[in-house]
């Protein structure tokens, strides 16, 4: 969405024009939901959190000064919600580690383990490996591979320098690669 159109939409929402906030939700729901659902594995929890993001946007719009772009401000709220959720989840679970191993893998004889994982298995492993990453890395991976989000958007949303975002993203991918070593063939 172009900055001019974003400003118009904010003004219409502030005037409580009928349908304006609905348009805002429709415009950003895909990105917000995808970002959260990629960070929070429980889908129903992700839905609640995505709704919470829009509730915060609705409450915060009167105070939105327009210094940042609307989209950046929305990503920032979504990132904060993800970070808070991860912190709470860690507290609840006592920072339990997610095992990359299939729970039934110990039942199989090593000789039967197929080193060439099918794409489906590999994707499953990838999701589990992503869950092992620190919150910041997870959010970066989730955001960077969403269509429409640039490095600059992520840097502004996470309030980090552009170089830091790039470095952290590369470190996140390196960590992922190391977690999946032997399976990425």
């Amino acid at each position, binding site marked *: 969405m172009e900055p001019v159109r974003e400003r118009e939409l904010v003004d219409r929402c502030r005037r409580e024009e009928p349908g304006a906030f609905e348009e805002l939700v429709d415009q950003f729901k*895909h990105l917000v*939901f995808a970002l959260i659902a990629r960070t929070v594995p429980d889908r129903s929890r992700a839905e609640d959190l995505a709704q919470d993001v829009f509730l915060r946007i609705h409450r915060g719009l009167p105070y939105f000064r327009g210094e940042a772009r609307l989209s950046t401000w929305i990503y920032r709220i979504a990132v904060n919600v993800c970070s808070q959720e991860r912190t709470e989840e860690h507290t609840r679970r006592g920072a339990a580690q997610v095992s990359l191993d299939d729970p039934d893998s110990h039942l199989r004889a090593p000789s039967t383990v197929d080193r060439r994982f099918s794409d489906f298995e590999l994707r499953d492993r990838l999701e589990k490996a992503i869950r092992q990453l620190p919150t910041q890395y997870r959010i970066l991976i989730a955001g960077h591979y969403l269509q429409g989000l640039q490095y600059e958007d992520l840097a502004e949303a996470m309030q980090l320098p552009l170089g830091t975002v790039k470095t952290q*993203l*590369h470190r996140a991918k390196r960590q992922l690669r190391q977690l999946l070593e032997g399976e990425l063939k």
Partner: protein
Amino acid sequence: MTSDPMCAALADAIEPIAAGELTPDATAAAHLSTCVSCAAALEQARRLDQLLRARPAPVPPSDFTVRTLQLIQKAGWRREQMVDWIFNSALIAAALLVAAGIGVALQHTGMPSVGREAFDALSNGMAVFAQRAAPSLPLYAGATGLLVVALGLWWWASDAAL
């Protein structure tokens, strides 16, 4: 990775090269073409990048917008109720404070006897009013009941609409 210093130097560059954000110079390119370990790391990084790009973006449910707007409406309604409750409580507290202040002032100014007379006059007036209103009491009770039912229906309808 091996203990080759070039391998260590390239370790941080594998991901940027795989993402196409960094082009290896001649030395790095030569190393990548000969070092099995670094070449494999680069291949894995490229494969990982492909997998991450191919991850399907989760899609919100079709009624997401409707449910979100309902939630916002409900939250606004609750906030208004809270403001009303705080306002009413403040009003009652202020009235009680004023009444207490008047009582204390009367005690200090030696006006309790005047106050008692005023109270007696008010009680008598109310008694007369009650005697006169007594024949129409069922009518008043019926009207009050209807008003309560109407208010209840309005409240129920507003709540159900959210």
